[in-house]
């Protein structure tokens, strides 16, 4: 029983490593936004809209990994 609990905690910790991808992905999206606005400042509004969409999609992938961690912790 204690081994199952230890396995749960270790599994949840390992699954949270997937959030590294989310962090890097969001940084890439906003780096592209800064590059794009610096090249053409007139497109700031449209590029910002696309960057918010890209941020949400990239964060979703990271949160899929976090959901696996919660699944392991609380739903066996």
């Amino acid at each position, binding site marked *: 029983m204690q081994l199952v609990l230890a396995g749960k905690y270790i599994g949840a910790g390992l699954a949270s490593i997937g959030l590294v991808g989310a962090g890097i992905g969001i940084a890439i999206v906003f780096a592209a936004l800064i590059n794009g606005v610096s090249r053409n400042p007139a497109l700031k509004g449209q590029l910002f809209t696309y960057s918010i*969409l890209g941020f*949400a999609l990239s*964060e*979703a992938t990271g*949160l*899929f990994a*976090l*959901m696996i961690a*919660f699944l392991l912790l609380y739903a066996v």
Partner: protein
Amino acid sequence: MNFIINSPLEQFTTRVYFGLSSGLINLDTITLTSFSIYSIAVVALILGFSILNDNNTNILPTRWSLAFESLYFTVEKMVSEQIGGLEGRLLFPFMFSLFMYILIANVVSLVPYSYAINAQLIWTIGLSVAIWIGCTLTGLANHGAKFFGLFLPSGTNLPLVPVLVIIELLSYIARALSLGLRLGSNILAGHLLLVILAGLILNFISISIFTFALGILPLSILLGIVALESAIAFIQAIVFTILTCSYIKDAIHLH
């Protein structure tokens, strides 16, 4: 009811407030739970917001009617850009209802001690699977067997075709799950983080008068995270609606 909170996950428990029971048939679905009370509150807020701010007798807009019109134009721009034409106008009420429901439900859940409707994964994934089934049936009804041409981007080499079709098929099926899981896991993780941090700050503050005074710093960090959560509430409503429009456009126009 127990007012002492034991774990941060207790904020997501659905409590039954009023239920019917019968010895003959299963009446579990006719219950008034926290989910249904908050759903009714969200719909009442949307209706009240719309009815009180319609301002249809004045020429000059009030601040409230400007805010409501900006929400309207957000959804209209999304729908007319993604699904243009007649189908876009016909589907606009559905998109607007979806957007307003998710937005107001997310914003209501930011009130302290409140209950997050969109953190219930059964609800969000069920909604997204229903939308996905609707898109697939729409595509099959409009295009027949040619709907499966959605899975083959034009101009691919012949050896790549089987692999690409399988990958596109898997990605299409994953849409059903990912649309709802994105919304649900964002709201769930955000609220869980807020409650965990608030519990830790409470433990820190209750040590002595010195830490009570020093507690203004962690509380300001918590304020920053609440601001992030309200931005996430708005962004997740927009992303859900814009992705639904994109999936419907794929079903109607086939790329």
